């Protein structure tokens, strides 16, 4: 029997939501952020010119470059194995620019200008990072219509604020911000993935 059809507007937006629904992107990005937090923390505790600090610096360079490429491939592979056989495959092609990026750019600009007027305790990297990540997640929440991203946005901003107020140094504040946000995203992504796989059981395969 046919199920009731969603509206045209919902359907146009549906493929975008589908990409984020299973929690895999959160898991991947959360792991990258958590690793970045560890790398920054390692940088903060190790003496200058020690091998550990060098390793931390290399890791911080590798994470946004190689890390994002590796994780993109990993997400695609896991989606091919676990998600596409359950709920289907979408070829997204090149990402289309959207108006949301202007919101994020505007927000980042406001934060940069706010650095001139914020009190000293908030005028540090942790607060800016938490606020910017919160803005990016709020933008994703708006486009994907996934409520949990609004929660992640609020948590990110709060973590940034807490880290700014708690830690005296930019390094420790950033390490705590990225580490904590990463951990929250791993937890959120893991729960979302588990819920998704439970709601959409794997198709039965005929083994002849």
């Amino acid at each position, binding site marked *: 029997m*046919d199920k009731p*059809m969603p509206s*045209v507007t919902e*359907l*146009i937006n549906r493929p975008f939501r589908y990409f984020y629904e299973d929690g895999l992107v959160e898991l991947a990005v959360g792991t990258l952020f958590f690793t970045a937090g560890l790398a920054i923390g390692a940088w903060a505790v190790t003496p200058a010119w020690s091998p550990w600090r060098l390793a931390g610096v290399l890791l911080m360079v590798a994470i946004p470059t190689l890390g994002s490429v590796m994780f993109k491939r990993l997400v695609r592979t896991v989606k091919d194995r676990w998600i596409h*056989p359950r*709920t*289907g495959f*979408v*070829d997204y092609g090149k990402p289309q620019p959207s108006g949301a990026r202007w919101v994020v750019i505007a927000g980042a600009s406001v934060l940069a200008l706010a650095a001139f007027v914020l009190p000293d305790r908030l005028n540090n990297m942790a607060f800016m990072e938490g606020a910017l990540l919160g803005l990016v997640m709020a933008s994703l929440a708006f486009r994907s219509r996934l409520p949990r991203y609004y929660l992640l946005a609020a948590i990110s901003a709060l973590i940034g604020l807490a880290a700014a107020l708690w830690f005296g140094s930019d390094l420790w504040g950033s390490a705590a911000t990225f580490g904590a946000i990463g951990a929250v995203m791993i937890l959120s992504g893991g729960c979302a993935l588990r819920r998704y796989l439970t709601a959409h059981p794997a198709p039965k395969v005929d083994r002849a």
Partner: protein
Amino acid sequence: MSEPIKSLVDADRIVHEPARLAILALLHSVRGADFLFLQEETGLTKGNLSSHLGRLEAAGYIDIEKTFQGKIPRTVCRITAGGRRAFESHCQALRGVIEDRG
């Protein structure tokens, strides 16, 4: 009869059918999607979806490509330029009717 209403009455019947409109809406913002995704999202039965995809392909609004992902067959549907134009034109006509009613 007002112009917006007239444009809706003269609407492309291929696009206007709700199931086919839904399929084109799903394909509109991506490069392609497979049969299973379209079935899950539209809630149509396999036979019903196949029939609608056949109509859309015959009208030149989508291309259907049968490939393999490893050993698993995969049917991928992609909207054509003509299909995109037809869908956007139909959405424009619908918007015109709603705005005309105020």
